[in-house]
């Protein structure tokens, strides 16, 4: 059967490099996402440190204006699209099927495609570094600065195409997780029995599938402007309105903020009960608060545009909506505190990071409410106060939450514990470094320092605080080094984790660490929100494999990486087309063919012959 499909037989082996390239196992894809995100985290972090060196003193000439602009553009783009989102995806992938009692996601090959599109898009964008220069238009790329009239360099083309490809991959992942969570739950795992992390994943996935199309369109329109001479953002020549870009971008961009923070909220909502030794307080409220945040998140985009001259009515409406979104957020914080109230709190490393999340995220939320007050925003917009605000939300929030997740689930993922000593040191160094870096930025903002300036003069008197901030940034870097040391140490001599090292309540802790590739030898039936706490009568020891052997899992496949390669090289062809038309067209044609051929190969891909035999033997 495989023969008439063509060149590639369906792979069987899960060993070695090819095993990883062709894998469709959600756990392996999760690890791929996680490792990639961590590498980009280091890259984005180095970009941040270079900026901090430049800003440590006035009139510095460490880097020039163009380099600095590229640094903050790539720092923002990297941290949002190549770090926090894929880090979230790493947890979605590894954990959601385990937590809802599934063998895999709904569409394993689509899952692999999502990853390959993400990594190829990220590589393509960073490739601009070798070809031209890093993109330097800011991470939200306001038109008309991004049109070819004002940005001659092809770096913006790399930015647009890289983002577009990553966006397609993310949207595909969004579909996958919506369906996985709605459709693949174990018997008895009703929606209202799901742990908070899969709940937030479901909400984030809905946000992704509805928020990414406006970005896709915005990027497409910009792409057409830059490549084919359309007029969508041509203000001078065609009378276009530059605010169109801002509206499209922020209709995507604000839900994106919740795409970045809700996974961390889910992690914290699962970590807190474990280390408080009691259930989450007001489970239903926390779930619905998440849903309300997501829903309102589509109606507040213009608060990024209060100073653009929207008109009084629109401004007032968006200010009101923005304040409204503070309510469910506040409710979540109170519920987390109430979860700890009356508990027996164990200050393990994941708990410390979760506490760091709650306190720092709350401060970020409060400064967020401050700029919902429009008059205040006219003074704060585009200053370091905003930079401080969103770092409190995205670093103090997302990164602290995700790090809590790393320390919490690392034993499950690898079967080994991380060191508590180094972990606690990591927390304190990061917590102090974080506050040293970002707390003074509030003051810099109040003192009028605009964001995205590559230099400032002595007379502006921002030098002392900036030096302090830069020192803080290096302390954060030190804390990341501690994390790396901890992981390396654990790989060499970490103690075995066992199934449930934290005595936690949810399903993923009912199977060995690391989990076997089929997850559950036998699919569990769930009867409560805390299956490992509530059901004393049932041992949680996983039953042995049934006599007829391992469950049949989807076979590995070449097609996801082939399709992703085809799509990426079409974008590559477009870039070549800019320079040499015919070569570009040739590359586009060939890679377009590879992509379409990949889709057909995918659709008609049989199960591998070896496993087909195995299946038949069972029937």
């Amino acid at each position, binding site marked *: 059967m495989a023969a008439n499909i063509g060149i590639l037989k369906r792979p069987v082996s899960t060993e070695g490099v090819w095993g990883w390239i062709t894998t469709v196992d959600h756990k392996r894809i999760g690890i791929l996402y996680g490792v990639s995100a961590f590498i980009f985290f280091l890259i984005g972090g180095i970009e941040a440190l270079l900026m901090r060196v430049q800003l440590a003193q006035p009139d510095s000439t460490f880097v020039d204006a163009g380099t600095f*602009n590229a640094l903050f553009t790539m720092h923002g783009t990297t941290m949002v699209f190549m770090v926090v989102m894929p880090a979230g995806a790493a947890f979605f992938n590894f954990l959601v099927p385990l937590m809802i009692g599934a063998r895999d996601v709904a569409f394993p090959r689509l899952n692999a495609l999502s990853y390959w599109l993400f990594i190829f898009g990220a590589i393509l964008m960073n490739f601009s570094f070798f070809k031209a220069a890093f993109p330097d238009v800011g991470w939200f790329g306001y038109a008309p600065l991004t049109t070819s009239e004002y940005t001659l360099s092809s770096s913006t083309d790399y930015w647009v195409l890289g983002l577009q490809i990553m966006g397609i991959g993310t949207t595909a992942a969004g579909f996958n997780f919506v369906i996985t969570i709605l459709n693949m739950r174990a018997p008895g795992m009703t929606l209202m029995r799901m742990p908070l992390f899969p709940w937030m994943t479901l909400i984030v996935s809905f946000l992704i599938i509805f928020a990414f199309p406006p970005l896709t369109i915005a990027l497409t329109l910009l792409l057409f402007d830059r490549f084919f001479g359309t007029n969508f953002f041509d*203000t*001078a020549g065609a009378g276009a309105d530059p605010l169109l870009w801002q509206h499209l971008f922020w209709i995507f961009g604000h839900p994106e903020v919740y795409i970045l923070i809700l996974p961390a909220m889910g992690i914290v909502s699962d970590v807190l009960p474990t280390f408080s030794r009691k259930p989450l307080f007001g489970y239903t409220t926390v779930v619905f608060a998440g849903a309300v945040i997501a829903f309102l998140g589509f109606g507040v985009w213009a608060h990024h545009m209060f100073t653009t001259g929207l008109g009084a009515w629109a401004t007032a409406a968006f200010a009101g909506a923005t304040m409204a979104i503070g309510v469910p957020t506040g409710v979540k914080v109170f519920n987390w505190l109430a979860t700890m109230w009356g508990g027996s*709190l164990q200050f393990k490393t994941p708990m410390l990071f979760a506490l760091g999340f709650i306190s720092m995220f*709350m401060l970020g939320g409060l400064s967020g409410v401050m700029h919902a007050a429009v008059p205040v925003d006219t003074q704060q917009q585009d*200053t370091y106060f905003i930079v401080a605000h969103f770092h409190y939300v995205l670093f103090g929030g997302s990164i602290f939450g995700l790090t809590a997740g790393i320390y919490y689930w690392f034993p499950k993922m690898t079967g080994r514990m991380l060191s508590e000593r180094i972990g606690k040191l990591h927390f304190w160094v990061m917590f102090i470094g974080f506050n040293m870096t970002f707390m003074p930025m509030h003051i810099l903002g*109040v003192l009028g320092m605009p964001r995205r*300036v*590559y230099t400032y003069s002595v007379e502006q008197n921002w030098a002392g605080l900036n030096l302090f901030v830069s020192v803080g940034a290096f302390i954060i870097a030190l804390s990341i080094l501690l994390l790396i040391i901890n992981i390396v140490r654990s790989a060499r001599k970490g103690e075995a984790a066992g199934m449930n090292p934290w005595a936690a*309540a949810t399903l993923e802790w009912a199977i060995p660490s690391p989990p076997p590739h089929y997850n559950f030898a036998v699919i569990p039936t769930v009867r409560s929100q805390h299956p490992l706490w509530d059901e004393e009568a049932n041992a949680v020891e996983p039953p042995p494999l049934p006599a007829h052997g391992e469950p049949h899992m989807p076979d590995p496949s070449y097609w996801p990486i082939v399709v992703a390669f085809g799509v990426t090289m079409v974008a590559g062809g477009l870039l070549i087309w800019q320079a040499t038309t015919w070569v570009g067209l040739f590359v586009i044609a060939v890679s377009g063919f590879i992509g379409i051929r990949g889709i057909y190969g995918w659709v008609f891909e049989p199960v591998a012959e070896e496993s087909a035999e195995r299946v038949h033997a069972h029937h």
Partner: protein
Amino acid sequence: MRNNRPTGAGNTNTVTTPTAHPQNLAATLRRLLYFALAAVALVAVFASCDTPLTTFEPRSDATQRVHTIYIFVIVAASIVGFLVLAAMAYILWKYRERPGHTAQQTHGNTTLEITWTVIPILILVAIAIPTIVWIAGTTAEPDEDALHIEAVGHQWWFEFRYSGLGPDGEDLVTANELRVPVGRQVAITLEAKDVIHSFWVPQLVGKTDMVPGRTNILEKFTPTEIGTFYGQCAEFCGSAHALMRFRVHVDSHADFDRWVENMNADPVPPEAGSVEARGATVFTNFCARCHTIYGVSTEEIGPNLTLFGDRATLGAGILDSTDENLKAWVSNIRDIKPVLDTTNAMPTFYVGDPLVDQLTEAQVDQVVAYLKSLKLR
């Protein structure tokens, strides 16, 4: 491993790592407190510095109104933040794991949850009311005697056009240093020539973007104090965004009127044969291709340089207007700031290489002398 029901500390024996000691926690909290105190002290030190772009020293009615709301939200947010952090610290201390203490298995409490939904709503309504009132206030028509100005953003400098104050009732144009009289309302409309910029003078008026293809209305403001205030472009607009600054001089009525009169009067030609006169020739032959000086030239590609000798700064507010700075600027602008890749960019005039120099060093000195001589009479 068997049942993990978390009914007490005894059941967590399966956990292999040591638990935190209360002493550690107390020490930790103390360390945090010291850290917070140090941070506050630091803030006090830096806030007392003279920072010209500070948003906390309002010098107009508009920024004063904003400042009042600003203080209100800062205080409200700080109180909320402090209370929540204090509650959190209390909970962490009170319910730390210790022998003989077991977790209470509560699941929720509707009354409590309704309470902490309603409280944020009340606080937010309290913030929303002044916000809405302020927004409604911005729609008011300008005063009858308001000074009407059109500000235009360019990559990377500001152009200011005073409606009807120029020669023959035309606009009176100046650049990078705005002059307004104290106590009179200023009504500014904002436009942009190329990309989006943002007009911001923290002590006089909050920012509003300058968007190409649109005419935005800046909040009306009445300066309350004579002095010089710093402005800065606040929307990323390309390589030299950081260097796109400007000044606002709030003058007495008499000084402002004298300045307008002088702007409109034809300049007195420099004494024949003087350095300034030779500089004027250089200006006419080179600079006049792009720059206007009323009564001398008319091109508006670059900033208007009438009465340049009275400006405190050059290069969009980035350098003091000294002879050396001006000389360096005229010689090779590229040493000082990034410039556009277009033909509209200011050329490099002198680098000491006869093959590329358009001017000699002497000519640069002459034109500097000429520009510095353009002063108020």
